[in-house]
C-alpha cells in the first residue's frame, strides 16, 4: 500500500472509530465493509485488521469507563471465560469457512446491529436510571445462588449515591456469550449488541453497566481471535497499522464529543449506512457464489 492509500485508510478509520463510538455501533461493523467494498481488501485480511481496531478502541474506551465506576469486573471475568473460548472456536471455524459464507454472516450481523441501534432511538435510555431496580424476590433461589456464589451483584453510581443491582440467569448469559465470541471472531466485529443483549435482557443489569462491561470484555475477546489470525498471516501491518491507529483516535475523539452532541439523528443515519453495507456484503457474496457456479 502506498502513502496516499495509507493516509486515506487512516482518515477512513478515524471516521469509522468516531461514528462507531458516537452511535454505539462500534468500529468493526464499519471497518470490514469499508475495507472490502471500498479498498477491495480480501475478506480474511479485512476481518484481521478490524479485530485489531476493535482491540484498540475497546482498550482505549474501557480505561475511561472504569474510572466512572459502571464496569463490573467480576461479571466481565466470568463471561470472558465464555467469549474467549468462543473466539478461539470461531477462529477455528473461520479456517474452514468459505469467504462467501463469512460475508453473508457479516451482512446479517451488520443489519441486526443496525436494527438494534436504530430501535434504541425510539426508546432512548436515560443516561442514569433515577429509580433503582428492586432485587427480584420471585426469582428461583437456585439460579440466584450462582450469581450470589460468584458475588456478581454490585452497585452503580448515580447523583444520589450508589444504587445496588442484582444479577439473574448467569448460565443463559454464559452460553449466549460463547455465541458472541464465535461471531466476533468469525466476522471481525466486537458483537457488542449480542453482549449487551445477554447482560441487559438476560442478566437484568442496568443499561450503562451492560454497555461498559460489554466494551470492557470486547478487547479480550477480539485479542484472542486476532492472536490466532496473526499466526495465520492474516494481520497485514500495512492495513492493521493505519486502521488500528485511526480507529483509536476516532473513538477517543468520539468519547470527548459524546456528552456535547445530540447523537440520535446521527445514529439513525449511521445505522442505515451500516445496514446498506451489510446488504452489499450479502449481495456481493451471493453474486460471487453464482459466478463460481456458472
Amino acid at each position, binding site marked *: *500500500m502506498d502513502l496516499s492509500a495509507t493516509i486515506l485508510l487512516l482518515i477512513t478509520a478515524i471516521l469509522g472509530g468516531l461514528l462507531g463510538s458516537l452511535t454505539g455501533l462500534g468500529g468493526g461493523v464499519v471497518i470490514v465493509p469499508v475495507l472490502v467494498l471500498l479498498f477491495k481488501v480480501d475478506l480474511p485480511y479485512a476481518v484481521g485488521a478490524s479485530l485489531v481496531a476493535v*482491540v484498540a478502541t475497546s482498550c482505549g474506551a474501557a480505561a475511561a469507563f472504569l474510572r466512572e465506576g459502571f464496569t463490573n469486573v467480576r461479571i466481565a471475568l466470568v463471561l470472558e471465560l465464555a467469549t*474467549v473460548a468462543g473466539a478461539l472456536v470461531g477462529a477455528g471455524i473461520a479456517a474452514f469457512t468459505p469467504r462467501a459464507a463469512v460475508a453473508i454472516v457479516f451482512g446479517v450481523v451488520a443489519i441486526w446491529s443496525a436494527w438494534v441501534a436504530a430501535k434504541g432511538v425510539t426508546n432512548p435510555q436515560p443516561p442514569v436510571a433515577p429509580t433503582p431496580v428492586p432485587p427480584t424476590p420471585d426469582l428461583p433461589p437456585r439460579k440466584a445462588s450462582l450469581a450470589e456464589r460468584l458475588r456478581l451483584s454490585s452497585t452503580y453510581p448515580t447523583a444520589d449515591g450508589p444504587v445496588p443491582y442484582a444479577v439473574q440467569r448467569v448460565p443463559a448469559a454464559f452460553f449466549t456469550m460463547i455465541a458472541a465470541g464465535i461471531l466476533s471472531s468469525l466476522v471481525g466485529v466486537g458483537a457488542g449488541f449480542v453482549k449487551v443483549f445477554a447482560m441487559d435482557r438476560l442478566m437484568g443489569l442496568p443499561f450503562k453497566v451492560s454497555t461498559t462491561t460489554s466494551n470492557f470484555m470486547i478487547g479480550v475477546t477480539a485479542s484472542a481471535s486476532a492472536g490466532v489470525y496473526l499466526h495465520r498471516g492474516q494481520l497485514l501491518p500495512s492495513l492493521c*497499522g493505519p486502521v488500528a491507529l485511526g480507529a483509536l483516535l476516532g473513538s477517543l475523539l468520539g468519547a470527548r464529543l459524546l456528552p456535547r452532541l445530540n447523537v440520535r439523528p446521527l445514529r439513525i443515519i449511521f445505522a442505515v449506512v451500516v445496514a446498506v453495507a451489510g446488504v452489499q456484503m450479502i449481495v456481493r457474496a451471493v453474486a460471487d457464489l453464482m459466478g463460481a457456479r456458472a
Partner: protein
Amino acid sequence: MNHPRDESLNRTISYTLRSGTMLAAAIIALGMLSGALTARTTTPIAPIGRFDPSITPDNFPGNLVRGVADLEPTALVMLGVCLLLATPLLRVLACGLQFIVQRDLLYAIIAAIIAITLSLGLAGVLG
C-alpha cells in the same frame, strides 16, 4: 460492593489498559511515520492480494525481532500491533494479581484460566 478494594482494582486495570494502548499506538505511529519519511522498507509491503492460508508468515517472531532491531518501519508497526493484542492479556493478569492480593481465590483462578487460554491463542497454539 463498591468498596475501596474495587476502586483500587479499577485503577490498576485502567492504568494497564491506558498505558498499553498508548504505547502500542505510539509505536505504530512511529513505524508509519518512519515509513512515510524514509520510504526505507527493506521488506517490501506485500501488495494486498488474495489471502492464501497455505502461506504462513515465515519465521514470524524471529523476523519481527530482527526487523525491530533494524528499526524497519513495517516491523515497528507489527510490534505495535502485537503490543496492542497483548494489552488485554496484561489487563487480565493485572486483575488476577489484584485478586491474589485481595485473597479472592475464586476470581484469581478465573483470571488465571482466561490468561492461559488467551496466551495459547496469542501464541498460535490454539484456534
